[in-house]
């Protein structure tokens, strides 16, 4: 097997508070995501999971530690390689509304992404993208603005825009937190279809254990900036070895 798609090694990163105090958000974390693999990064707010997601996306340069993409660090890459590496990892956020420009139509939003990738036959690809995320028939949606879509449709549009870049890894930060329960299944099915059809890998950042359990191959549990436990999802979530993981699992209210 070749090098993993994403490998984070010994990552430490801190932020300076407005008062001047340094807060270490991520402390000596190592994590890998293989081709086509789904890894759930589970933790509570302030655990550092979103910071780690941003480091994976190249949005934050860590204080120490190394980020490998398919076995190579960003520093070793030429500018062309770097650009390709950047678009290979795409984000999806919890709040699709905030990540979609409200003044642009669906046509513009997808066109912009496709042009950025340097795609030909944009018109055709745009419809393909819409239909691949279940916005069918595609042409119906082209002239709409984000606010004219329902919450579930907006999240699908955000996914379509990420797909326009032909990513190999999607870093999804709480992609279902904003969605109603009845919509959650639709989005989860879409994400698993895309995984199957396109061999996509996911780094799924979530506080929701049920989603990690249902969707992930591997789980990493984060607390206070560190990964306290990681392993196969079925194992970690059924026989946790660490106290923190046990507490977290016990706190989840269960449906009888």
């Amino acid at each position, binding site marked *: 097997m070749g090098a993993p798609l994403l490998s984070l090694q010994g990552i430490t990163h801190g932020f300076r508070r407005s008062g001047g105090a340094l807060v270490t958000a991520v402390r000596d974390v190592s994590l890998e995501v293989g081709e086509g693999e789904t890894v759930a990064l589970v933790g509570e707010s302030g655990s550092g999971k979103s910071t780690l997601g941003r480091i994976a996306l190249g949005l934050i340069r860590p204080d120490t530690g190394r980020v490998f993409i398919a076995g190579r660090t960003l520093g070793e890459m030429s500018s062309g390689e770097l650009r390709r590496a950047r678009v290979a990892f795409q984000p999806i956020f919890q709040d699709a509304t905030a990540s979609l420009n409200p003044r642009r139509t669906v046509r513009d939003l997808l066109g912009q992404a496709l042009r950025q990738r340097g795609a030909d036959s944009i018109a055709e690809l745009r419809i393909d993208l819409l239909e691949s995320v279940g916005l069918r028939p595609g042409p119906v949606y082209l002239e709409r603005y984000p606010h004219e879509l329902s919450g579930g449709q907006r999240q699908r549009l955000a996914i379509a825009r990420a797909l326009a870049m032909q990513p190999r890894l999607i870093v999804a930060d709480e992609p279902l937190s904003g969605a109603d329960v009845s919509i959650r299944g639709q989005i989860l*099915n879409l994400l698993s279809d895309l995984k199957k059809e396109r061999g996509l890998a996911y780094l799924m950042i979530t506080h929701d254990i049920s989603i990690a359990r249902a969707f992930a191959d591997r789980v990493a549990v984060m607390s206070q900036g560190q990964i306290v436990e990681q392993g196969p999802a079925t194992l970690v979530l059924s026989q946790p070895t660490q106290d923190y993981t046990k507490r977290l699992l016990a706190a989840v209210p269960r449906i009888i």
Partner: protein
Amino acid sequence: MQQTKPPILQLDDVRLTFRTRAGTVRALNGASLTVHEGEAVGLVGESGSGKSTLARAVLGLNPERSSRIEAGRILIAGRDVTRLSQAEWEGARGHPVAMVFQDPLSFLNPIMRIGRQIAESIERHAPDRRVEERVGELLELVKLPSSLARAYPHQLSGGMRQRALLAVALACEPRLLIADEPTTALDVTTQAEILALLRDLREKLGMAMLLITHDLGIVASACERLYVIYAGRVLEWGRAQDVFGAPAHPYTVGLFHAARADRDAQGRFATIGGEPPDLGETAQGCPFAPRCPKAMAECARAMPHASVLADGETHAVRCWLYPLTRDSETAVERLAEG
């Protein structure tokens, strides 16, 4: 069956509309619900279901100008509050209902110390000469250190803020606490603490609770009975153990599968197809019919009355799939006549 206590809250076929620029929105379309003294009841619904509108109606918090209760009644401890004006609500001292919200920061005054806010609530609702002492007692009740009386809201964590808001609410010695998504903004471990606190408080104070949530897991851990609301209508209600054991309405069934992230034989996650309804449309029939996998011709025509599924009327559903009880037969007759 256990002996039923008198109702502290009763909503009887409440219809409430909002006037908006886009037209009239029917937020509650004939919603009925009862909370008995001391009881913990869950109201489960998704966004736009009308669950928060219902809660606000109970406290007269919906905007007076743009909302209207068109029909039905709201009784609090037997008193009809359906037509109270804003001024009458404000004069309603010692009101037996208090409310806490998802986002405590919007309801706590950012520039007033926590202790002062609790004291104001005491002075307003349950005047007491020993205000200082009462503030201390209330902080202890919600398990906050008394030193926090001097803190400002922004200095507290999310869980502490929710406790502080609870102390403000409890200052008026409510017999019913309405909690609207009280833990949605919190982490699971903090959520578990707040739910445990609510349970504890209800036991200590004998207070009833109406817990509004989208999360069936929370209802399972905190409520004795529940109502499932969709598009302003209550579709199913009953004792938690009955509804969880055998959900009846196709919407409730779908909600359970979706909440558990259940999968079918092909490995597909359970979903409820379609989109939530547009509340502007005048819906004759069951609002869930357009998304319902079991919809029949009559579903689009009319909303059935309740079919009782368990003895003692502890579990009931409004769905044409279930054999009609006497009540619903009258409804069919009425439909035929009308």
